[in-house]
């Protein structure tokens, strides 16, 4: 299953809730959630730990807008909107953690 998270991990709890509940699968970070894909934040350790269970991707245009495309955690894949579409198509179902 594809889990789409769009909230800042330092302001909202939705990423943590997703990590607690979701069965192993893919997580796509978009909008303010892309900060979770960056090195050096207080969230980094939780995201790295989650990489044991999830494939983690982040939307490149959102990383670029927020000026953090150059500090993506190793092992997090970046995708453009076309890649976002591919992820939706590849998985049987998806869930947005609004």
């Amino acid at each position, binding site marked *: 299953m594809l889990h789409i998270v*769009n909230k800042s991990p330092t302001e909202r709890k939705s990423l943590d809730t997703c990590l607690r509940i979701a069965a192993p699968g893919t997580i796509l970070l978009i909008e303010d959630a892309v900060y979770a894909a960056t090195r050096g934040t207080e969230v980094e350790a939780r995201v790295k730990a989650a990489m044991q269970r999830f494939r983690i991707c982040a939307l490149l245009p959102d990383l670029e807008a927020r000026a953090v495309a150059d500090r993506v955690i190793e092992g997090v894949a970046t995708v*453009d*909107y*076309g890649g976002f*579409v591919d992820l939706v198509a590849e998985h049987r179902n998806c869930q947005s953690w609004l």
Partner: protein
Amino acid sequence: MNLGILVNEGPYQHQAADSAYLFCKAALAKGHQIHRVFFYHDGVNNSTRLTEPPQDDRNIVARWSKLAQDHNVDLVVCVAAALRRGIRDDNLAPGFRISGLGQLVESGIQADRLVVFGD
């Protein structure tokens, strides 16, 4: 693949409407179909033809109308949410239509995937 889209937030205040639009554009470019874009909650505010954003900013409403025109995308605004928020047939931008929540459920049933954008 046939994709349904749900947009739960209005234009400008949240990025949801932007993300949904750019997703639709990318999906169409890849040869997928958009079964329907359904606008719910404040998402109904995407459909007002009265917006006039600054010249140097994107026109979110006009972008949706153009998407509908160029690719024959069905843009449906929830009637109950629209009535609460002052969206009516007479201020609807081109390409949008007002209908019931059944259209959202139908999209969930008929489309291969339903992708939700919101706050």
